[in-house]
């Protein structure tokens, strides 16, 4: 029997905006992590696109920052139930990074400095749905929020937006990442409340 704690409501606040089911609004920017914050010197940072056979594309920080970037505003939805709306970022669209790449891969595994990985269909990285973002709220992205650069895929739960991203591996077969392999939903659409596997 659960006891209800008289007068306890937690950190939630009511929202008059439409949120995905089960989410609450936050004005903070909670920091969640599965491990230590990596500190990646910019002169060692790299982003690569690989497939099973090798590296197809590689950028260092300079060549990455030479790419055309854009500013954009998106809503973030974390599976731990907080949502943060209208966040502003600057980043390079995955469409740019994947441009003219000939591949018949169906899926991608994003991997980060540290050991974090997350998987998604390759098509979810394209058509203006995903960026490698390096500035948040007008400032360089802080390490605790994934800096120097993180993946941002706002149409899925935020665990798919891999912090400290270092590359994408193209795959012909889906392979679950860090949380997907331990009970979290393989796809993770917040609007269909796909938090856990089997829902």
């Amino acid at each position, binding site marked *: 029997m659960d006891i*209800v704690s008289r007068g*306890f409501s*937690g950190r*939630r606040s009511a929202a008059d905006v439409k949120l995905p089911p089960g989410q609450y609004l936050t004005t903070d*920017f*909670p920091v969640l992590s599965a491990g230590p914050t990596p500190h990646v010197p910019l002169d060692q940072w790299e982003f690569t696109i690989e497939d099973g056979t090798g590296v197809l594309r590689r950028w260092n920080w300079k060549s990455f920052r030479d790419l055309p970037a854009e500013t954009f505003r998106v809503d973030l939805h974390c599976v731990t139930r907080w949502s943060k709306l209208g966040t502003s970022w600057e980043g390079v669209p995955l469409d740019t990074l994947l441009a003219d790449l000939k591949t018949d891969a169906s899926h991608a595994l994003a991997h980060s400095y540290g050991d974090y990985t997350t998987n998604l269909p390759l098509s979810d990285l394209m058509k203006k749905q995903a960026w490698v973002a390096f500035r948040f709220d007008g400032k360089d992205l802080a390490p605790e929020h994934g800096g120097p650069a993180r993946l941002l895929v706002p149409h899925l739960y935020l665990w798919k937006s891999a912090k400290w991203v270092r590359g994408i591996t193209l795959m012909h077969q889906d392979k679950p990442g860090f949380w997907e392999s331990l009970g979290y939903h393989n796809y993770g659409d917040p609007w269909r409340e796909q938090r856990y596997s089997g829902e």
Partner: protein
Amino acid sequence: MWRPGTVVVLHDETATARTITLEVPDWPGHVAGQHVDVRLTATDGYSAVRSYSIASAPNTEGRVELTVERLANGEVSPYLTQEVAIGDRLELRGPIGGWFVWRTQQTEPIQLIAGGSGIVPLMAMIRSRVAAASIAPFRLLYSVREPGAVLYRDELEALSNHGQPVNLTYTYTRAVPKDWPRPPGRIDAALIATSTWPSNLVPTCYVCGPTAFVENAAGLLSDYGNSADKIRTERFGPTGDRK
């Protein structure tokens, strides 16, 4: 595994810390150093769980005391330190822990090092020692931000007077009392050398507080010659979402 406890006593220790005494039917008893998980549930089923060290000595009355420090951005500690009333019920899981404990059968010298609210489980150890009339010699090095932040001051005073069981050293990180011989700052090697047991006496050391505090103090104890298996640590920190 969750059992209800009823709030029977509330006592403000400082401006920001409160001790909550709970009566827990069928409480199996505990060992000094153990903690409980406390679960709060809102009417819509939303729940939050936090860990709190048991402050009271082992007893047979089924009473559990928790001393909770209010965190400015906390989700649970403001509720526990400001909203909870006598007669309210809280759900507890525990007691938990078998390593960061002091058992009354231990007779070796004990070195306690507390940072801020890290004093809570160490106070349970001190209270346990007193209740059991143990003769194990205790030293406590207690680091706080400023004098107003000291918990259990009067009780510690009584226990550290001449001839009493606990040798007590305060140290302050932000603001010191008038005429204090040492400027505010972190624990350093000099303080370890002057206030803790010589390592050749092979004390069992318990270090508790925020992670950065524990890493500093435990590292200094190790540098001083205490071996790793004689240094037990418990790190405190927020477990709700960080900002």
